[in-house]
């Protein structure tokens, strides 16, 4: 098994334990759903610029291909609710209705943030393939009220590489949850985006505070270089 790393990251070379392998690392793709980055979805209905949430899609597709090639565990998450909204907290529902994008309301992509609707699907660029893990979550964090922690531990995962949308909301919440649970996290700066550029930048900077309070950040090129270097070394030996 090839050993990868360290990746040139901030504020420290990632991971803190120097190396990672395909067997102990998971790539997590957070909420690349039509509702968050597709026309007619939830984010579009709220009036935000889709270019901001779509910016990380192409680099993420490249990283996804590399992770599949390396044999890493690939995990996709989807935010959404049961059709009867029984897993949607009433304050979450009320807030969404108040800004004219009510969860469960009919839209161009079906009912907003509801399981099985067009808007709830992952966009084609990073669509899951057979054998990849899909986590459906009712909240922002991918660990709360899901079996993600159990799945990761069962696979022996120690390191997590994060991509997805939006940086300051679902990606940050999930990174915080993972870090609190002892996973060593890397967030890829060009594989994520937010509905506000300032919040995207602040969210990235927060990760690097206090010596890497939630882990580290790096551009995807740094990760890809690390993967390629290990592959080249394996070919030589």
């Amino acid at each position, binding site marked *: 098994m090839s050993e990868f790393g360290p990746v040139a990251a901030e504020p420290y070379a990632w991971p803190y334990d120097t190396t990672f392998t395909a067997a102990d690392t998971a790539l997590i793709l957070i909420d690349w759903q039509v509702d968050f980055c597709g026309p007619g979805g939830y984010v579009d209905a*709220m009036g935000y610029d889709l270019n901001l949430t779509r910016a990380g899609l192409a680099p993420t597709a490249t990283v996804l291909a590399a992770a599949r090639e390396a044999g890493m565990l690939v995990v996709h998450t989807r935010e959404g609710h049961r059709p009867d909204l029984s897993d949607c907290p009433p304050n979450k529902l009320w807030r969404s209705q108040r800004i004219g994008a009510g969860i469960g309301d009919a839209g161009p992509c079906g009912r907003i943030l509801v399981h099985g609707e067009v808007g709830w699907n992952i966009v084609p660029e990073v669509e899951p393939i057979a054998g990849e893990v899909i986590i459906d979550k009712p909240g922002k964090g991918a660990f709360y009220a899901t079996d993600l922690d159990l799945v990761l531990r069962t696979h022996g995962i120690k390191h997590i590489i994060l991509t997805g949308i939006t940086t300051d909301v679902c990606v940050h919440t999930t990174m915080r949850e993972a870090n609190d649970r002892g996973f060593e996290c890397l967030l890829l700066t060009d594989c994520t985006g937010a509905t506000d550029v300032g919040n995207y930048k*602040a969210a990235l900077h927060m990760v690097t505070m206090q010596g890497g309070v939630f882990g580290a950040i790096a551009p995807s090129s740094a990760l890809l270089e690390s993967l390629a270097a290990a592959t080249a070394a394996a070919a030589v030996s």
Partner: protein
Amino acid sequence: MSDLTTPYPWPWYGELDPTRLALVVVTSPQPSGDVTTLVDSIGAAAMAFRAAGAAVVEIRSAAPLAKRDQQHAARQVVLSGADSADHVIEPYGWDGFHGTPLDSILRAEGRDTLVLSGWWLEVAVHSTMRAGNDRGYECLLATDLVAGLDPTTSAGAISSIHMSGGIFGATGSGKSVVEALTTPSEETS
């Protein structure tokens, strides 16, 4: 309260009910600045909250157990004396909900409305607010009762709350909450 909170009149269900309310005081080790004044303000708010029938919960956050080192040994205890907390929670990480009885305690007491205070805003306070919001708690970040590590990231932490109509809840001043708790509600005609 209605005009004083952003981006919506908090709490979502209408008039603030102190029996549903808890003041959450998050403390963290490694203070990078002087929090003496903040501690005094939180202590005064804690007494007003309790007098109105709300609970006070202190969360002594720390680095995740797997990442804890010597630097994290130092700890400040915020509340003592008359303003001491009703419940003290000691998580093995930044989020006060993960691996602690916080959720059970709040549910048992019927408290689903949280005012978040303490330090640091971008780290333990935000992680706890996010976790509370995902669990259905109605959260308000008290902007005058928190301290951040950095002005830019503090601004980002507050701005993020305001996105999508209040994605983690709302922000407002602790002072306005105390005023709402101590002022008889106006009769509606």
